[in-house]
């Protein structure tokens, strides 16, 4: 495994261990204190926030800020909390993640196992899609959506996310399928299996690790997206990140830090949940296919 650890008996020194744990501790502080502040602040009353310090442990825990963030905080002129936008994001993420993952698998399959003329050119162009600054597609896309009558709708935003997620999902699956022996496909062909049969019965069952990577990647990318959301959606159809930004920028009277932090947690919970449930498989899947070197 690692070459830089004190894990083997012949090399462990007390100083080395103290040093390593010291670094781990400092880094843990850097990564965790802000998160701790977020959680603590969200369960304090405004009275306690005003009088105490940010890192102090809450003396009494209240979820008032949470319920306000969920159902009655103002996001612009509308004052009905984040709940509606939360479900917008759920309806946005569900089709985009599944469709872009499925199409990515299909593309990867065709690109590796049905090598056609120009496959490499196609793949190189896909790679561009991973690195392109999205700013360049914003205005042409906005116009296209306008022509299609999809400007400011969830359907339009779904379309945008599927198209621009395709580059990454295809990359994941292509690199995973490259290491699956072609003989497997050839043998199935000899047995008379067709294009889709081979895909369903042979490729997909082997793809679980990379499907997990693709789903987690797409889920976090799309759930957390702000740029496409703020440009391509409007009013009622906005995703949660855009609503969250509106919530912070709507200042009516005193700034309610506890409501802001509760809102941030609500927006972050789904991706954290996905990670806690499937994070292990994400790292494992990355090892299996996406990161080669």
């Amino acid at each position, binding site marked *: *495994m*690692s*070459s*830089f650890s*004190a*894990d*083997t008996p*012949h090399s462990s020194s007390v100083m080395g261990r103290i040093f390593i744990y010291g*670094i*781990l501790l400092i880094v*843990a502080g850097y990564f*965790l*204190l802000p*998160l701790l*502040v977020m959680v603590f*602040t969200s369960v304090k009353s405004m009275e306690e926030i005003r009088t105490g*310090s*940010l*890192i102090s442990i809450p003396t009494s825990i209240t979820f008032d800020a949470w319920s306000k963030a969920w159902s009655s905080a103002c996001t612009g002129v509308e004052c009905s909390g984040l709940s509606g936008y939360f479900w917008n994001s759920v309806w946005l993420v569900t089709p985009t993640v599944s469709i872009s993952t499925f*199409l990515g698998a299909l593309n990867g399959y*065709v690109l590796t196992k*049905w090598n*056609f003329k120009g496959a490499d050119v196609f793949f190189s*162009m896909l790679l*561009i*899609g*991973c*690195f*392109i600054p*999205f*700013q*360049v*597609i914003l*205005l*042409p*896309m906005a116009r296209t959506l306008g022509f299609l009558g999809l400007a400011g709708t969830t359907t339009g935003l779904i379309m945008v996310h599927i*198209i*621009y997620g*395709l580059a990454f999902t295809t990359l994941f699956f292509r*690199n*995973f399928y*490259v290491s699956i022996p072609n003989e497997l496909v050839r043998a199935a*062909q000899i047995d008379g299996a*067709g294009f889709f049969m081979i895909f369903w019965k042979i490729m997909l069952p082997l793809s679980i690790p990379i499907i997990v990577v693709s789903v987690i990647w797409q889920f*976090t990318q799309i759930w*957390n997206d*702000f740029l496409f959301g703020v440009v391509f959606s409007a009013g009622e159809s906005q995703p949660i*990140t*855009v609503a969250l930004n509106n919530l912070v920028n709507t200042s009516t009277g005193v700034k309610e*830090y506890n409501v*802001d932090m509760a809102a941030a947690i609500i927006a*972050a919970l789904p*991706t*954290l949940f996905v*990670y806690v449930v499937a994070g292990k498989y994400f*790292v494992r899947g*990355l*090892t299996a296919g996406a990161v*080669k*070197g």
Partner: protein
Amino acid sequence: MQKNRNLIEALLFILPALAIYLFYFILPIPTSFYFSLFNWDGISAVSNFIGFDNWVELFQDPIVWKSFGNNVILIFASILIQIPLGLMLGLLISSKLKGVRLYKLLYFLPMMIASVAIAMIWNLVFDPNFGLLNAILNSVGLEQFAMGWLGDPKLALGAIIGVVCWQFTPFYMVIFSAALSGIPEEILEAAYLDGASKIQTFFKITLPLLKSTVQVTMILAITGSLRYFDLIFVMTGGGPNHASELLATYMYRQAFTSFRMGYGSTIAVFMLMIAFSITFLILRNRKQGILYGE
């Protein structure tokens, strides 16, 4: 025959995807360039042709160069802080130390959180009056260093870079820990038997084996830094006085706040040109690794 029939089937399936892709990915590039030749407010028709005026303005716009400089600073900060730190943490969480699994789980958290939420958390950390950072500085007797972090043009970009590192280092950590698990233990064991120290083993064996991973993370860091947008947009909006302005935030405000869509397109195409040249330079000598899976 069977093979041909299947190939046709395969092509039939990928062609629509290819067409959609070309239509929405490749086409916008010339379209954006076309827009850059117009003075266009986004509402009326694209008709006010002004030739290369937008481009002349771009090259003379001090804010464009200020933003570009900030993008470059962000790139260097990513390469010099995030990647080494990510590699170090990757090594640590790949080791068999006790409690490492917990750290692995915790360090991973920031990369799962939306930039907008991260911006809110860190605005609270940097708050001049009762923010976490100033509270810590005061409590350890460093009052003179307690500042209005995001309000000071000299500090805003640096403060934000601290947040960007917080957000993305975990990502590099995960990539490196995945790559490290692909290095056979026997190699490291053999080095140890030959009397190599840990430091030597790292620099002579582990690091060369990670070369392609390092290259990939560099491409990701550079292209990511070039198009970086949401965190800064929410935290400072590019301020104060463009101190933390990036090309992406400037483009957004030109196009969607000032409704100068033509000029916004010009900035966007400029960003694309930079991204292409850098990616090309790195990829020219290398067609392997993560990108090609070979």
